[in-house]
């Protein structure tokens, strides 16, 4: 057993050629927490996600999930272990309708076996009905129910991000990685999304890791917050702690005052 956290990352490295995108990051995500991950552009947050989620192979280091070594497992295996993620740049299935985008997610569908598609049609029909209802529910929650039959390639940038989030809501996950779900999403809707995350966390015990540059959003949801910079973990703590950290301010937050005094000048 490695640590007690839901996810434990030990001295992880990911190098692209000579460039060290993740450079010896170690962190632990507690079971049932909503952890915020912040850091300047290029800090290596997304790369860290990708390594954990199996999209990229680490150069070195290990990743554990609930004590099990998951380093290098392919994404589809991780999905079945309950690890879900969204993409910073939306990866919709562009020629499929939004509803289908959601309905394809659950992994235990009888209809995904060829044999059943030929000879087990009744069972599939039942399952499909349930899936469809579920998908419609999610779409409604995301306020895009009117897009159910639109091709996902032809919806707006923000709507794609919503769909991205919606996919993680189709199945029971144990841990969900959200990569900037908020970027480009309307702030009012973002609040609703925040509520949903809290609810999933409370009611179903999902663990969340959230990358976001919107401090309000982070502040509302996350404890603890981890700040990365140059591929390493820079600081960890509650948001107020982090906000007070000199290094974090310098690398990431800035004083936020600069443009204030220029307005109207």
């Amino acid at each position, binding site marked *: 057993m490695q640590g007690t956290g839901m996810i434990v990352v030990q001295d992880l490295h990911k190098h692209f050629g000579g460039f060290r995108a993740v450079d010896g990051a170690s962190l632990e995500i507690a079971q049932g927490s909503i952890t915020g991950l912040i850091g300047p552009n290029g800090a290596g947050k997304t790369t860290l996600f990708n390594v954990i989620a199996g999209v990229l192979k680490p150069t070195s280091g290990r990743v554990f999930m609930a004590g099990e070594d998951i380093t290098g497992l392919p994404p*589809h295996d991780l*999905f079945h272990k309950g690890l879900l*993620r969204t993409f910073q740049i939306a990866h919709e299935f562009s*020629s*499929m309708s939004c509803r289908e985008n959601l309905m*394809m997610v659950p992994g235990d569908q009888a*209809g995904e076996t*060829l044999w059943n*598609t030929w000879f087990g049609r009744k069972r599939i029909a039942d399952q499909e009905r349930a899936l469809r209802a579920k998908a419609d529910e999610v779409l409604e929650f995301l306020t895009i129910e009117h897009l159910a039959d639109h091709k996902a390639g032809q919806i707006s940038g923000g709507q794609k991000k919503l769909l991205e989030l919606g996919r993680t809501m189709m199945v029971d996950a144990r841990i969900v990685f959200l990569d900037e779900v908020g970027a480009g999403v309307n702030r009012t809707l973002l609040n609703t999304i925040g509520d949903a995350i809290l609810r999933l966390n409370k009611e179903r015990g999902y663990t969340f890791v959230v990358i976001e540059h919107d401090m309000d959003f982070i502040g509302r949801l996350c404890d603890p917050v981890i700040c990365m910079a140059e591929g390493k973990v820079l600081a960890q703590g509650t948001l107020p702690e982090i906000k007070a950290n000199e290094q974090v301010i310098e690398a990431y937050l800035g004083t936020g005052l600069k443009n204030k005094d220029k307005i109207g000048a």
Partner: protein
Amino acid sequence: MNPVLKNTMLFAIVGAMILYTGFTQSWNTALVIVNMGLISAIMALGVNLQWGFAGLFNVGIMGFVALGGLAAVLIGAPPTPGAWSAGGWNILSAFVFALVMVVVVVSVRRRMAAGWPRKIVVLALLIVGFFIYRALFDPGVEAIESINPAATGNIGGLGIDRGLWVTLAWPVGGLFAAAAAWVIGKTALGLRSDYLAIATLGIAEIIIAVLKNEDWLARGVKNVVGLPRPTPNEIDLQNDPAFVERAAGFGVDAVTASTLYVKLMYAGLFTVVLVVLLVLAQRALHSPWGRMMRAIRDNEVAAEAMGKDVTARHLQIFVLGSAICGIAGAMMTTLDGQLTPGTYQPLRFTFLVWVMVIVGGSGNNFGAILGGFLIWFLWVQVEPMGLWLMELITSGMPDGSALKAHLIDSAAHMRLFTMGMVLLLVLRFSPRGLIPEK
């Protein structure tokens, strides 16, 4: 226009063209077109499965078709007396040895830690293995090939040549193709689009090279002729008084009746195969499985993140699609009654099938089938069209003028020209294919 109506009309048009051929040329011609059309449609179905639904760019169709043809030989051809005792067992043992060798190498690679020692051991095993393999294999080949090379010189088949049993070759052809596709898929499916394309193209060429040069297998370029057919023999029918009488009842002479009868029987068998495959494909595609495949086609990375084992699914559909091509290939060889490795050319067996899929409308099974019939019809019928065109152009010219002679002489080359024209016209008016994906 309502799409169902439009599609029905398209099919009706192609049907009408074939009927027209029947009325104006002959029903035999029409049926030949129908039969090859059915086979083409099946091939197109297989390719459509891979491309239209999974986005796999396979241009190795020719290879799978040829493997199907090989099955027809190995099932149907008469056994060569003495071939097995002369060298068959040698060859078989060579294959078994090769298989064992592969297993050994793989397990050695697993067991030993990476590094120089492993590389050396593996390399040594491979080299030694290769020589032992050749030592087993070569004498066998030589022995078999020297058995009456002008007429046989090959290992021969199982000699299954009774009636419908002959069609056993078809599923076996599918199996052959599937097995090859599995091996290819295991190695090459990680490649992207055009790189996968050239890889499959290359593998197809390799398969053909083997078929052409391994005479012990199916006589290589010397061809195997006189393969058994699932239908009665025309000559037998013509000599059968009962048949002649019945034909006379319909008012047709025995020769025509017998040729039509045989072709109709083929058409029937082929139609059964096509319909079964179509139903299976349709069911699969309008189900969560099909949805999953489309998701994978649209965005692999996301599908993978959503728990779909992209590699396994790709392999599955690659094997299935290739198997279908193999079945079609076996059917074609049975129809021809001979295996002619030299005829397997990419243009005819790979790119023409692609044209069928794209013109018909990729991603739609009915489109693929329509494309199969239409393009095959054109492939065969543009030649008279080209000639007709040339005659039309030259009709105003004085007889004996050099230009006229040149034009008429070039008429044969107008076949491909006309084909190209028609292709461009069709794609101009429905750029996404005649029956596009919804």
